[in-house]
């Protein structure tokens, strides 16, 4: 490789590391978050705030009280579900950026069941809602998956574009045909009947969607690491050439994986409408489908690590709201999230590569 900086026959070059050390894998995210907080802190100082005070307000808001903690879990649920959703696709190098739209379609399908087919016991209605949300999210993902599988159409762009379509379609329903006739013309659907609302834990807002997330993580783990299908997915993701050589059906698996990915995001949408808002309304998701991408990467696509990471990001969101109520711009929170992703992905290169001084004595820097 050509030198990055060449001085008198010596050059600083990037060299691939052999085995990736455990320490590097653990240290990297920690250092990245620390650096992100440092950069965020600098901005806070420059805008005339005390970073330590702000960070501690955030921490207290998110984790410092029973209410804060429960709210953090509430935010973590959709993050976990859509994080798992994108991670399945990412594992196969399918860049599904469309969890947001798939989440909306899941919510739409669940709402459809809740508004028009909610006659039955709670368990039946809720099961129908979950099923409808999974299928709707999955089918929405298929729109991007089919051209990807058969014609190699770039799924990053199609899934992203479909997000806007899904959100606008949901708005159309809310402002149009599904608007609550008794809602004083507010852009909301009618409130769901009791049988279409997910049960909650005690008096908190933590709803049954938490168990969907936990179950999904467990099922995905088992499916990916202990089944023949999961083995195929991992081989295709790591080396499509080897997968073809082994006789694996790549096209079929692209379709299956995108369907599951969209379906899981759809369940996240179902959990939001049924567990939190109890109706379809605009701004259902504050970008969970996008934050999920960060969550999935930080967790290195590992379903169990994702439990912790989505909890922390839930905390970040709740902490952000706390700061907003104390007069800080919401953009600062988004900036912090961005900074964390930037440093984690940037730091990734140092777990895989190292800097080496070549030419004279070989020395590691």
């Amino acid at each position, binding site marked *: 490789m050509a030198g990055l900086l060449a001085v008198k026959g010596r050059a600083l070059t990037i060299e691939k590391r052999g*085995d990736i050390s455990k320490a590097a894998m653990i240290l990297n995210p920690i250092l990245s978050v620390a650096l992100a907080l440092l950069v965020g802190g600098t901005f806070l100082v420059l805008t005339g705030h005390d970073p330590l005070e702000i960070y501690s307000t955030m921490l207290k808001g998110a984790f410092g009280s029973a209410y804060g903690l429960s709210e953090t879990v509430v935010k973590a649920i959709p993050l976990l579900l859509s994080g798992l959703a994108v991670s399945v696709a990412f594992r196969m190098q399918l860049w599904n950026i469309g969890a947001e739209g798939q989440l909306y379609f899941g919510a739409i399908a669940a709402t459809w069941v809740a508004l028009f087919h909610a006659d039955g016991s709670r368990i039946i209605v809720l099961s129908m809602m979950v099923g409808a949300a999974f299928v709707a999210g999955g089918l929405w993902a298929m729109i991007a998956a089919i051209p990807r599988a058969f014609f190699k159409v770039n799924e990053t762009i199609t899934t992203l574009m479909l997000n806007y379509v899904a959100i606008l379609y949901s708005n159309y329903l809310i402002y149009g045909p599904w608007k609550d006739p008794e809602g004083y013309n507010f852009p909301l659907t009618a409130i769901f009947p009791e049988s279409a609302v997910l049960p909650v834990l005690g008096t908190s807002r933590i709803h049954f969607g938490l168990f969907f997330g936990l179950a999904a993580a467990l099922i995905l783990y088992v499916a990916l690491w202990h089944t023949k299908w999961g083995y195929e997915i991992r081989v295709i993701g790591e080396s499509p050439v080897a997968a073809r050589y082994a006789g694996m059906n790549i096209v079929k698996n692209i379709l299956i994986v995108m369907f599951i990915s969209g379906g899981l995001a759809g369940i996240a949408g179902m959990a939001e409408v049924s567990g939190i808002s109890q109706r379809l309304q605009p701004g259902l998701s504050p970008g969970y489908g996008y934050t999920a991408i960060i969550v999935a990467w930080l967790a290195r696509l590992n379903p169990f690590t994702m439990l912790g990471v989505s909890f922390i990001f839930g905390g970040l969101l709740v902490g952000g709201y706390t700061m907003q109520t104390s007069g800080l711009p919401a953009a600062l929170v988004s900036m912090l999230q961005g900074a964390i992703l930037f440093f984690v992905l940037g730091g990734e290169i140092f777990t895989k590569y190292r800097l080496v001084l070549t030419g004279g004595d070989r020395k590691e820097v």
Partner: protein
Amino acid sequence: METMLVKMVSITKKFPGVIANRNVDFELKAGQIHALLGENGAGKSTLMSVLTGLYMPDDGEIHIKGRKVSFTSPRDAISAGIGMVHQHFRLVNSFSVAENIVMGSSSEGFLIDMHEAEKKLAAFSEDYGLNVIPKAKVWQLSVGEQQRVEIVKMLYRGAEILVLDEPTAVLTPQESRELFATLRRMTDRGKGVIVITHKLQEVMENADRITVLRDGQSVATFNVRDTNPKELAQAMVGRDITGSYELPEITKCETILQLKNLSAYGDRGQIALKEINLAVRRGEIVGLAGVAGNGQKELAEVIAGLREVAGGKLHFLGKDYTGKSVRQIVDAGVSLIPEDRLGTGLVGSLDAVSNSILKNYRLKDAGRGWFINWRSVRKCTDKLVKDYDVKLTRLEAPVKLLSGGNLQKLLLAREMSNNPEIIVAVYPARGLDIGAIETVRNTLLKQREQGKAIVLISEELEELFALSDRIAVIHEGEIMGTVDRDCLDLNEIGMMMAGERKELANGRVASS
């Protein structure tokens, strides 16, 4: 007096675990086309990467026109007048020819007068008989035209010394002739040209001098008028073709693998295999000899189901498998030992345990129903690794950390554990150490004794002579003929590799 354009003295370049060049000397005179000949992995490309500043040598000196130089980047080499035309062109498809040529040229200032550049270019290409249209976009050009753009680009940047890496690999015969005519015009103007190649015929027709590399060392330099293809072939593959194995007699009646008038297209849509007829019987190793790039890769892929059959039939055990899926062919007992061990044969980022079930994960051996029983798979892997003496630190380490020899042993272990009926081994010993080569050969011989049908594709005639019951020679996608073990003759095989049919080659050898 002839000017010495390039003088490389005792160049040594090491990579972790490999010495790619060992004390190689190389000289290029002005006005000459100098061919660098050698098998894959002989160190040709490394040597030229050292000359063009991509690699810094660990030892040795480079002199350009008598001046000692030390390049730290390709830019240094370009400013010293050395231009390289890579096998994969470095052109921007959506840019025009002129834009590609001017782009990155250090002689241009911040502002570029495209009109002026185009005029200059047109005059320039006419001078060398390089017909390029400055305004054409690169994506509109054929491969041969793109190559001409690369050459003009180098000349435009003031290259006195032009290095071309396998330039004719992507060209039609007509285009190849035009290319060498152009190169000749350049040498007539006092420039020097180095061509990396392994095509003997081309070298004999077009080069002035030839340096042969083998195993990272320079074997000899010949003047083209003082040598012949046979001498070059021997220098390339090593002089001694001895050490033949005793092949135990086996009754080989039943034909297991049969290709009938089989044709296939190559990656670029060219005809890569032309009506191939080949039958391999139980307990037989059929060697496929040929200069690399004559259809060997395509033949192996067609048998493994990885490449579509364009015409003809493919039979295993008497059943028609034409157009069947890879999975069906794997299940029929066809095992491919691919050329590209890491990437095709094994998944680098997965561990040995995961890699050990790549072919049979669907079967009961890997676990019942939908699940994989990793504990029992691990136990089997452990046994395979021990049986084949694969050296690894732990079973859970990603296999990309293994050396070439250990990778190949692991791959063989896996493939043989599935008890295949038909084995296609593509360059199975390439780049391996002696120990691993022994394992490869013994494995193939053992499989032969067990009654498997084996196709062995190799560039090393020594290996083919040692192991094959018969040798079929392929040239430009056609089988030139098949020679039985008892009648093997190096000259005859050499002639057939150069494109003569068996009957002709036979006659020529007999009369000489």
